[in-house]
C-alpha cells in the first residue's frame, strides 16, 4: 500500500485515503479535434515500465488533486506536485534525472 505526500495539506497519506486518477498531463481535445486526436485523448494511455506521472486525489483528506512522479517497477516515489501544471516541474525532473540517468519524457529530461 503506497504512501504519497499530499502537496496541498502536507500529509503522508496512505493509499486508502487516496483515489487514483490515471495518467497526468493529458491534453484535452475538444469539438474541433480530429478523430485520431480525440480517440487518443480518450483512450490512449502511457503504460511505462519505470518513471510515470500520475494523478491522485486526496479523497479522504483535503479533497485536492495532485500529481505524483513514481517508478512503476520499484514503486519509488520521486515526488508529488501540484495538479495545476501541464508538465512536471523542474525540481521533480531533477530528482528523476539524478536517480534514473538518461531518463527523458516528451522532450523533457
Amino acid at each position, binding site marked *: 500500500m*503506497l504512501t504519497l505526500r499530499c502537496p496541498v495539506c502536507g500529509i503522508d497519506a496512505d493509499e486508502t485515503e487516496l483515489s487514483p486518477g490515471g495518467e497526468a498531463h493529458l491534453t484535452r481535445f475538444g469539438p474541433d479535434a480530429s478523430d485520431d486526436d480525440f480517440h487518443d485523448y480518450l483512450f490512449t494511455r502511457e503504460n511505462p515500465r519505470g518513471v510515470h506521472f500520475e494523478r491522485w486525489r486526496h479523497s479522504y483528506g483535503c479533497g485536492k*488533486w495532485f500529481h505524483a512522479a513514481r517508478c512503476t517497477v520499484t*514503486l519509488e516515489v520521486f515526488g508529488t506536485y501540484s*495538479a495545476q501544471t501541464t508538465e512536471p516541474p523542474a525540481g521533480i525532473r531533477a530528482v528523476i534525472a539524478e536517480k534514473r540517468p538518461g531518463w527523458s519524457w516528451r522532450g523533457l529530461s
Partner: protein
Amino acid sequence: MSTRLPTLGRLIDRSAPVKFRFNDRHMQGLQGDTLASALLANDQMLVGRSFKYHRPRGIVAYGAEEPNALVNLGHGARLEPNQRATTTELFAGLRATSQNHWPSLEFDIGAINARLSRFLPAGFYYKMFIHPRPLWKHVYEPFIRQSAGLGRAPRRADADRYEHFYHHTDVLVVGGGLAGLQAALTAAQSGARVLVIEQTAHWGGRAPVDVTADPDRSHVNGKPVDTFVEQTLAALRAMDNVTLRTRLMGAGVYDHGYVLGYERLGDHIPDADGPRHRLWRIRARRIITATGAIERPLSFAGNDLPGVMLASAMRDYAVNHAVAAGRRVVVATNNDDAYRTAIVLHDAGIEVVRIVDARPAGGLLTDDARARGIRVETDRAIVRVKGGRRVSKVQIGSQSGTGGALDEVACDAVAMSGGWSPVVHLWSHCGGKLLWDAAGAFFRPDPERPPLGADGAGFVLPAGAANGETDMASVLRDAHAAGCAAAQAVAGTAPDTAAPEAASTPEAPLDPVWLMPRNARADLRAKTWLDFQNDVKVSDVQLAAQEGYESVEHTKRYTTLGMATDQGKLSNINGLAILSDALGQPIPATGTTTFRPPYTPVSMGAIAGEARGPVFQPLRRTPMHGWHAENGAHWEPVGHWRRPYAYPRAGESVHGAVMREVTNTRANLGLLDASTLGKIVVKGPDAGRFLDMLYTNMMSTLKPGRCRYGLMCNENGFLMDDGVVARIDENTFLCHTTTGGADHIHAHMEEWLQTEWWDWKVHVANVTEQYAQIAVVGPKARQVLEKLGGMDVSADKLPFMAWADGTIGGFDCRVFRISFSGELSYEIAVPAGRGMAFWQALVDAGADFGAMPYGTEALHIMRAEKGFIMIGDETDGTVIPQDLGLDWAISRKKADYLGKRAQQRRHMVDPDRWKLVGLETIDGSVLPDGAYAVGSGRNANRQAVTEGRVTSTYHSPTLGRGIAMGLVRGGPDRMGEVLTFPGTDGKIYKARIVDPVFFDKNGDKQNV
C-alpha cells in the same frame, strides 16, 4: 507412548493443572502447555487425518509450521476450524475436536482412499473429472464438494469482538528471539521508535532450548542465554521509544513499509473482556525480519506416521513442557543440530535407540552422543518407518542404497532433521529476492535485491537465522548490524556499541539429503511424504516432472504441494529439491514458489474488525427518517440512504400502497421526502461559464429566479446525471443532482476545476445535507401552502420553473416550482434542522386536502407516466442524451461542453442506435423489467437478433394498464409496430411502440 517427564519444562507450572476436552475425552494439562504439548502429555499422538487419503496424522512440529494438528476449537458461537494445536495455548475448559474423519478419528471410512492411492496420483482431479461432461454436475461435483474442505464451518455468528489498530513506527522488528531482541536494542539506542512483535507468548526464541543440550559451552557476554534474554528485555522495557508485544504475528509486508500484524489477545483467556483479535495496520520506515528458521523434515518412507516428528520439535516439547514424544526414540539426521535432541532426551531419561546420520563420518557432536552411550550409525538412512496409527519400528539401511534393510529396531517415535530453512516469507512478500546458499542448503535473502520503499532504498533488513546465520555468535553480530543499518536509515546515526560476544557448540556442516536412502525404490518413494496435510509424496512430484511440468508454480498447483493451510512451510524446499532432481537441474534454477501473505492464517473476524452489523456501512438518514419509520415505511436502499419505497397501511400490500399513493397524489395531495436529492452550490464570476461546460444545456443564460432542467455527460459523451439547476444570483447557481449522484457529481466538478480549468474563478460546495426538501405535489398543493400562509405561491407570482425565497407557515424556505410527476408541484427546501417540523406542519395542514406521504415507487410510476427518464433506468453508462430524445436539452449554440466531441463520433451518430420509446402491452399486462425484444434472424454468433430492451416498466394505476419505456433500434421511427419480448417466465409478451409520454401530453396539470 508420549508422557510427561519428571525433569525439564521451563514454560510449565507443575502446580497448576488445567482441565480440557479433546473429542469428548477429558484430559489434564498444565499451565504453560500448548494444546499440542498437553495432548502429547496425555499420550494423544494421533490428532487428525490427512486431506486426500485420510491417513492418520500426528503432531509433527512445535510452532506455526505445523501441518497436521489442526482442530475445531470451541463450540457454538465460538467454534473455529483449522486451529493449530501447536499455537493454541491451553486454558481451563478448552474444547477441541479433530477434523477430516468420519465417523471417528480412530476409525475412518475415508481412509479407504489410501488403499486407492495408486489410482489417485498427482493431477488426479484434473485427469478424472474432465470427461464425460454430463457427469460433472450430478456425480463429480457433489463428490468433490463432499471431500473438499477441512474442519467444520461455524453455523452461528461470531460472539467475539475484533478491532483494527493503527501504528506508525520508525523500526519494526518481527520476531522476539535473540536476533530480534538484539536488533531492537541496537536500533532503539539511536532514539528511533521501535516496535518489537513476537508471535508466541514468549521472548527469547529457541536459543534457550538449544543450549540445554550443552549449557557449559554456551553463553552470551559470559552469561547464560536466559540471563542475556532477561537483561535485554529489561533494557528494552526501560526505553520510552520501544514497544514490545507478544502474541502478535507479522502477517504480511506490503508496499512502502506497510505491515499487517495479527494479535491474539483473547485466545488463551476466552472469557476476558475486550477484543479477541486485533489487526495491526503498521507503517514502518524500516522492518527487521528476525523470523528465525524452520526445520525441514527428511523424506523417507513412512515419514508421515504419527510419532515421526521434527527433531527440534521433540526437543522443544521436552525442554519447554517436559513432554517426551516417545519412550524409545530413533533420531535421523543429516546435520549436527539433531544431536541436541538426542542428548536432551537421553539426559532426561528417554532411551535414544539410534542416531541415524546420513553423513559418511557424522559430525562434531557425534562423539558427545557416543560418550553418553548412544549408538550412532553414519552413512545410514531410515529405509522405512512401520506402524499403524503410531510408529512401531524403523528399518535402517545404507544412505547410498536403494532401500535394502540392514537392521530393524523397535521404537515409538522418530526425530528427523533435514536441516533448516530461514523464514524468508516477510522478506519476500514485497519483492525481496533470494539466494541459494549451498553450504546450508537453503534460500536466504539476497542483500543486493531487497524490497524497495518510497525512497528507493531497501526497507526490509533480515537478521539472524532468518538471514541464514546459524550459530549464536554470528546471529547476534548479524542482528546488531541490522539494528545499526535501521538506525542509520531512520535516525541518521548508528549507536556506537559492539555486538555481544557469544559462544555455542561448534557444528559440522550438513549434507544435503533430499531423499532417504538416496536411490530409494519406487515403492518407497510412493510412501514418502513431502506435504503431510495435502498428501503429496515424492512420487507425485516426480510424476509431475515426468508429465512435463517444469515450472515450480505449475507443479505446486498440479500436485497441490504446499497448498495446504501451512502453505508449504515444511514441504517447500524438499519438494522443489525433488523436482529439481527430476528435471536434472540445480535447485536455484528451479526457484521457489511465491511467498504470499499472511504468514499464518488470520481470523476473518480480525480482518473485518469493527466493520460488522450496523457499523459495516453507516446509514444516512434524512431529518424525517424517524417519521417515515413510525409511519410504516417500507424501505428502499438508495446509495447509503434509506428512502421510503411506500407506506403500506395495516392489511395493505406494498403494491396496494404504491397504487393508492399514485392515485391520491394525482387526485389530491402527495408529500415526498426529497431531501436526499443532491444539492451543489456553484459560485463565482465564472460559474455560468463552468456550468456551460458541465451541462449539455446553456446555463449561463438562465435568469436569477428561474430553474432549468439540465443534463450532464462525461467526456465519452454518455449521460451521467440530470437535475434542475436554479440560478440564485448573478454569480451563484444551485445544482440539483440525483440522490446517488450527489457525491460523485461534486467530485466530478472538483476534478475539472482543479485539474483543467484551475484558473476559472469558481467554488463548488456540496450542501446536500444542509437542507431538508419536501415535494408538495398534486392538484391541492397550492391550497395547502396557502392554508399554511406566507409567501405568494400563485401561478402569476411563482410560475412553472421559477423559484423564490420566503416563508410558509412561519418556516424560512426556498420554493422551487418544479415537477417530476406532471402535477402541480412545489419542492420546498428548509434548513435541515427545521425539516421534521415543516414536514409535520404539511402533514397536519394537508389532512383537510387528503394529503398522504408517497414513496419512491409512486415517484417512479408518475415520472414514467409522464415519460421522464431516470438515471440508472434509462441510462447505463452507454446511453447518450440523443438516444433518449433529449436533443431539446442540448445547446447547439455552445462551442463546447463535456461530451460534445464524443457525441459526434461515428458510432454515436449511427442511425441504428437504440432510442427511447414508450411500450404498451397489447393485453395491458406489465412487461418484465430488462426484457429484450427479439427480431427475426440470427446474428454472426448465431444468437437471436435483439432490437431493443425494456428500461422501466410499471402498472400505471392512472391508466389502468402496464406501461413501459425502452430503448429500441430506430424506435421513434417505428411508432405503432408490435415487438416481441420473451420473458424469463417462458411467456411471450407483445408490446406496441408508442410515444413515451403516456399521460397529460400537453402538461395541463402541472401548468396551473
